């Protein structure tokens, strides 16, 4: 640790990176080739799919896939459901995780390893396996003996027109992402030192949290929220197996009716996620001291 810090302090002169000029020249041709092939492989299908979505051998080119989806049967309901689920997921995530993370970082550092382990654990159990256990809960609480009890009331509410149950599960699925986003923010902005400074200057705990901690965490809270939201907009596995129909499930079912619309909407939803993530990258890039969030692992 000492050595690491004194590198930064001691060398006003970072070794001029002329390093691999020569070796870079050597590998330029094959590097270009690889990138070109990769670009073709990844961009090609997107372009082809776009062409598919606007071109029809009988009617020629039209953009109904991008203009007509609002009026498509069931789109409104499904999309509204996804949006509401997304908002609920973000809200629950933040209410649950921000205080937890603050407590862990500021007051109970010994608990940090535990919270981290449990936050990353949902990566280990495939959602398609976890959802089987959820179905067990549903069928158990659906048994006659719970009729009329608060348990049944709650479960009915969670599985009603708005399947809030999904939000509750998505919070868990998004946890590895949201944990990392918040953790990166807390580490990057050295919140502990800021809090010590504020306490030292006489600020009370509520003031510290409200005026010092939360403002410095703005970007990572935003990141966590956007990631959770992106996850909900695309989540298919749990919704499908639990028989709910938010946007992704609707998209899959709608395929039989209009293939072009389905492909168009697929492209749109990819683009939307892309924009959300670019926003995160952009925000993280602009705020110094906030570690770049590592989009490292998948959940579905």
């Amino acid at each position, binding site marked *: *640790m000492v050595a690491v810090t004194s590198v930064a302090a001691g060398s006003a002169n970072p070794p001029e990176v002329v*390093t691999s000029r020569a070796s870079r020249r*050597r590998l330029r041709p094959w*590097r270009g080739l*690889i*990138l070109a092939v*990769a670009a073709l492989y*990844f961009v090609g*299908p*997107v372009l*082809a*799919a776009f062409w*598919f*979505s606007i071109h029809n051998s009988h009617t020629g080119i039209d953009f109904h896939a991008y203009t007509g989806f609002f009026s498509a049967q069931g789109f409104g309901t499904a999309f509204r459901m996804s949006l509401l689920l997304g908002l609920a997921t973000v809200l629950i995530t933040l209410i*649950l*995780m921000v205080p*937890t993370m603050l*407590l*862990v970082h500021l*007051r*109970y550092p010994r*608990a940090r390893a535990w*919270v981290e382990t*449990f936050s990353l*654990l949902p990566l*280990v*159990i*495939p*959602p*398609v*396996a*976890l959802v*089987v*256990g959820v*179905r*067990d*809960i549903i069928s158990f609480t659906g048994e006659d003996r719970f009729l009329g009890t608060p348990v049944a009331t709650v479960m009915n509410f969670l599985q009603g027109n708005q399947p809030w149950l999904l939000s509750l599960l998505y919070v*868990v699925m998004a946890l590895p992402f949201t944990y990392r986003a918040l953790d990166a923010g807390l580490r990057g902005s050295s919140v*502990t*030192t800021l809090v*010590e400074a504020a306490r030292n200057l006489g600020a009370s705990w509520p003031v510290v949290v409200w005026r010092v901690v939360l403002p410095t965490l703005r970007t990572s809270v935003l990141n966590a929220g956007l990631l959770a939201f992106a*996850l909900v907009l*695309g989540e*298919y*596995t749990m919704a*499908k*197996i639990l028989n709910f129909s938010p946007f992704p499930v609707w998209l899959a079912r709608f*395929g039989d009716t209009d*293939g072009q619309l*389905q*492909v168009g909407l*697929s*492209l749109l939803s*990819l683009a939307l996620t892309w924009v959300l*993530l670019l926003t995160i990258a952009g925000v993280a890039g602009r705020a110094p001291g906030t570690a770049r969030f*590592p*989009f490292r*692992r*998948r*959940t579905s």
Partner: protein
Amino acid sequence: MTTTRRRWRIPGGRVRLGWLGLAPFAAYLAVFFVLPSVLVLFSAFRRVDPDTGVHSFTLQNWSDSLHGAYLKGLENSIQLAAVTAVISAVLGLVLAYAISTSRRPFFKQLVSTSSAVLANFGGLPLAFLFVAVLGSAGVLTSTVQSLFGLSLQDDLHFSLFSIRGVELVYLYFLIPLMVLVITPALEGIRPQWREAAENLGATGWQYWRWVAAPVLLPNVLGSTVLLFCGSLSAFATASALTNGTLAIVPLQIDTAVSGNVLVGQENLAAALALNMIVIVVPLTLIYQLLQKRTTTWLR
């Protein structure tokens, strides 16, 4: 870093109360994660007598899940995961290296964001994307047909809706995943190592053989394991692409619970899910171990 952290002077009682602040987190995970996971384990070994409604312990579900069509499904799943993981690991490594040698931060950012979209959030849309390209009315399918008079299905024996087709689509999100997980390791390779090696007389190949490869190896293996798990547990793509007909474990779980015709299918689904968990959990631990190893090196 840790030494600068101080405990504030708080009366003893409040300290103990403060721990309650972590209770919501613990309770939430207990209900929505631990409980369902444990229930999978529990109901995998349960049966309900259809006549009396009495529950009892049984190994039957588990045995069923390892026989006949389900055994075939497990084999398919493992094969699919292994093939796609290895191919993606190799291609992803090469691609990540090509990208990491770039000096343009904007380009890198673009790649990492796009990779994240495909690797983490792509599942379902990807299926339809490929239907548009390689499906029976797909752009490429009809192009090949009209240009060469060849049918992908009949002449080239390729069907998007077969296991080969699913493999192809999986690569589309597994390669970006590899790029995401291996890039930190590649960037952790210090230019000084190459310079020191060359300085001591190493050729480029010798540098890769003796210095870079040993550093990367645990990470590459670990990432391959991770890709295997990702591929094994993926559901959306295959489900949408083959309409749930492909014989792989995740789709069989869906069929078992969604069909909901036969009593006991839920328990069979739990046994299938348990099989997946039994494969994925140890592998994830291996991944963590391998990862930790490189972290100490790349510190």
